[in-house]
C-alpha cells in the first residue's frame, strides 16, 4: 500500500458550518480510518458530554471551529488523509459570503472541488458563488454533495429538484468542460460518504469516496503547451562539471524532449534541448509537473524568470494585459496604482491602467462600474507592465496565465489575476 504514495489528489471544500462541511470532512477521516486513537477518544468524550447519541465529527476539524467561535480571521486549513489507493490533501476554506479570497486560494491548488449543499435549503447564494469561483479557476472536476439527506427523509424528488436547480446554473456558465457529479449524502450518519447507504437505495451512483477514488488524474489534467520557466541557473564550478550550465525549473504543461527546438524568452534566442535530468539521472523526456534541470546545445544567456518554450509553440508577448482580478488586500485596488506583478517566478513592475468593471460573483456575471476593488471583489482590469511578459490566456495554460500582484510597500500578496 505504501508504494502508491506518489499519487496525490488535491481537493478543496467550501461551505459554512451549517452546511455540515466539518462533519463531512470528519466523516471521511473516520470512515477511511484516518483518525488516530487520541483524536477519536476526544470526539467520543465530547459527543457524550454534549448529550449526542451520535459522534460529532465536526470535532475532527476543531481547529476551525474554535477559530470561528473566537471570531478571528478565518483562513485556509489543510487536512491530510490517505486510502490504500492514494493520498488526499483537502484545502478547507470556510465559506462565508465575504471569503471569496479564501475560496480562490483553496481552489487554486486543488484538482477537485466539493460543493456542499444543505438539502433543506437547496441552491443558495453561497452555492452560486462557489460554483462561480470554480468556473473562474477552471476546475475540471466538481462534486456536488447534497448533504443532510436524513433531514429531508432521503426524499428522491426533493433531491432531484436540487440537482435540476443546479443544472440551470451550469447552462448559464461560460465554462462547459467540467465533469460535475451529484451525490446525495448524510455526513452525520455516514450515508453514501464512504459506505453505500440503504436509506439512499434509489441512488444508483457511486458513494463520494468511491467517486473520488475513481477519478483518474490523466482525465482531469489540463492539456497545455510546455512552458518551462527558469527558477535558478545551476553552475557547479567543479572539475567534473566544469562547463555545466543547467536551468532548473518545474515544467508547466505539456512535455519536453531531448532534441526539441526551443526558444528562450525574452531574448528570442533559439537552441535545442541537450539534456533533461532529475537529480543524478538523465532522461529523454519530462512532462508537466516535473522539477527538472535542462541544458541547451548552445551557450545562450538564460537567467531566472526566463521562459523556455518549443519554438513552434510561442506564447503571447505583451506589455499590456487584460485580466480578471480577485482582490485580497485590505487596501483597495485603485486605477493608476503600482504593484509588482509576479508571473510565475518573474517579477515585473506594473501599473493598473484601468478598472473596467466589477464582476458579480453569482452566476449572472453581472458587471458594475466602480472606481476601486475592495477585498473579496472580482473585477476586470487592464495592467501596464514595465517589461513585456510571455504568457498564455489562463484558459489555455493555468500556470502561465495566472499572476499575483504584490504591494510594493507592505510586500503582501494583494491580488490574484487570470489573464484573458
Amino acid at each position, binding site marked *: *500500500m*505504501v508504494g502508491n*504514495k*506518489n499519487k*496525490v489528489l488535491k481537493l478543496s471544500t467550501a461551505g459554512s458550518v451549517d452546511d455540515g462541511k466539518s462533519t463531512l470532512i470528519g466523516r471521511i477521516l473516520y470512515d477511511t480510518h484516518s483518525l*488516530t*486513537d*487520541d483524536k477519536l477518544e476526544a470526539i467520543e468524550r*465530547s459527543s457524550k458530554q454534549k448529550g449526542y447519541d451520535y459522534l460529532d465529527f465536526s470535532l475532527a476539524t476543531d*481547529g476551525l471551529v*474554535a477559530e470561528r*467561535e*473566537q471570531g478571528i*480571521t478565518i*483562513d*485556509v*486549513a*489543510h*487536512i*491530510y488523509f490517505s486510502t490504500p489507493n492514494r*493520498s488526499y490533501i483537502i484545502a478547507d476554506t470556510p465559506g462565508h459570503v465575504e471569503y471569496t479570497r479564501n475560496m480562490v*486560494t483553496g481552489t*487554486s*491548488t486543488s484538482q477537485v472541488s466539493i460543493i456542499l449543499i444543505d438539502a433543506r435549503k437547496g441552491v443558495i447564494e453561497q452555492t452560486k458563488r462557489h460554483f462561480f469561483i470554480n468556473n473562474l479557476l477552471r476546475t475540471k472536476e466538481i462534486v456536488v454533495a447534497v448533504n443532510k439527506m436524513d433531514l429531508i427523509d432521503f426524499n428522491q424528488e426533493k433531491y432531484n429538484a436540487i440537482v435540476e436547480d443546479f443544472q440551470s446554473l451550469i447552462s448559464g456558465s461560460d465554462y462547459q468542460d467540467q465533469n460535475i457529479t451529484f451525490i446525495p449524502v448524510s455526513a452525520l450518519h455516514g450515508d453514501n460518504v464512504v459506505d453505500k447507504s440503504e436509506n439512499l437505495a434509489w441512488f444508483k451512483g457511486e458513494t463520494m469516496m468511491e467517486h473520488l477514488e475513481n477519478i483518474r488524474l490523466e482525465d482531469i489534467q489540463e492539456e497545455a503547451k510546455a512552458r518551462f520557466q527558469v*527558477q*535558478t541557473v*545551476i553552475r*557547479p564550478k*567543479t572539475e*567534473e562539471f566544469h562547463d*555545466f550550465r*543547467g536551468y*532548473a525549473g*518545474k515544467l508547466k504543461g505539456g512535455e519536453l524532449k531531448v532534441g526539441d527546438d526551443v526558444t528562450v524568452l525574452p531574448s528570442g534566442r533559439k537552441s535545442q534541448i541537450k539534456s533533461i*535530468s532529475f*537529480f*543524478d*539521472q*538523465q*532522461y*529523454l*523526456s519530462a*512532462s508537466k*509537473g*516535473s*522539477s527538472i*534541470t535542462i541544458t541547451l546545445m548552445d551557450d545562450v544567456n538564460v537567467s531566472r524568470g526566463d521562459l523556455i518554450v518549443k519554438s513552434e509553440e510561442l506564447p503571447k508577448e505583451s506589455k499590456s494585459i487584460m485580466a480578471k482580478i480577485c482582490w*485580497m488586500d485590505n487596501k483597495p485596488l485603485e486605477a493608476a496604482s503600482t504593484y*509588482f506583478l509576479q508571473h*510565475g*517566478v518573474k517579477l515585473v513592475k506594473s501599473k493598473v491602467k484601468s478598472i473596467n468593471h466589477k464582476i458579480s460573483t453569482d452566476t449572472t456575471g453581472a458587471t458594475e462600474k466602480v472606481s476601486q476593488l475592495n477585498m473579496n471583489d472580482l473585477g476586470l482590469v487592464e495592467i501596464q507592465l514595465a517589461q513585456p511578459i510571455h504568457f498564455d490566456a489562463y484558459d489555455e495554460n*493555468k*500556470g502561465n496565465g*495566472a499572476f*499575483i500582484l*504584490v504591494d510594493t510597500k507592505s*510586500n*503582501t*500578496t494583494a491580488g*490574484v489575476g487570470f489573464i484573458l
Partner: protein
Amino acid sequence: MNEKVINNPLEDEAIYIFREVAGQFDKPVILFSGGKDSITLVRLAQKAFYPAKIPFPLLHIDTGHNFPETIAFRDQLVEELDLELHVHYVQDNIDAGNVQEESGKYASRNMLQTDSLLQAIEKHGFDACIGGARRDEEKARAKERVFSVRDDFGQWDEKNQRPEVFDMLNGRIDFGQNVRVFPISNWTELDVWSYIQKEKMEIPSIYFAHKRKVFERDGMIWSAHDEYVFREDDELVVEKIVRFRTVGDMSCTAAVESLAFDIDKVVEEIAASSISERGARIDDKRSEAAMEKRKQQGYF
C-alpha cells in the same frame, strides 16, 4: 538513459520550493536537527541543485541534550556532502544568563531553543530559514504558509498571512524580517518514512529498534540518562527494546516499544499505527494540554 521523468508531486513541489528560496533570498539556511524531517530536507536540497552542491549552510541549535547518535550522524552527513554547519549552543545562552534553565521533573531545554535561533538569525543575517515542519503535525501548523513571514522579533502573525495562490511564492520582505520556509509542508509522517525507504537514505540508528535502559512515567517510556533526564528514585530503570519515532532532546522525546529493526518494518509500523507521532513527544503533550484547556473554555 532513462525514458521519462516519473512525477512525484510531493517531491517536485519540495524541489520547486528549494529553488525558489535560492532565487529569492540572499542568505538562506537549513534548520537541521538531525531528525528524519531535516535529513529529508537535505536530500531534497541535494536533488534541487545537483550537480552543484547545496548552496545553503545548515544551522543546528544544540541543546546539549541530544542523543549522541544524532550528533555523530550530523557530522558525518556534513562531511559527506561538503556542507557548512553552524552550531549554536543553548548552553552558551544559559551560561551568559540570557535564558534560565527549567527545573523539576519535566525540565527540558526545548523552549530555550527559540532564543538561540533568533540570535543565530541576527548574527548571520539569515533571511530565509528552511525547516522540516509539516502541516499534518499539528492544528496550528495546518494553517501555516510555505513561505511564512516573521517580523523583527521572529513572531508569526497567523491572522495576517499572505495568501498563497497556485504555486506562486511571494518572499518579498523588509530588512530585519525573515521568512520561514517549509518545503515538506504537504507531507505526512508516512510520506516522509516512505521516502526514506524509497531513497534508501541513512538515518540515525535510534530510529530503529535497539536495546536501551529506560524507565516509565505517565505511561511513556523515557530514556534513562540521568545526566539530562530527571528521574525519581522510585522510577526504576529497565532494559527494553525500543525505538524513537521523532528525535528531539532526550529530555523531551519518549521511546516506543518496537521490533522494527529496519526501514521496511518501520514503514509498516507507521502505516498501521493508531497514535499520532506527537503522542511520543513530551514537549507536545504539554502544549496539547494547554490547547485542550483553551478549547474547553471556549466550548463550555
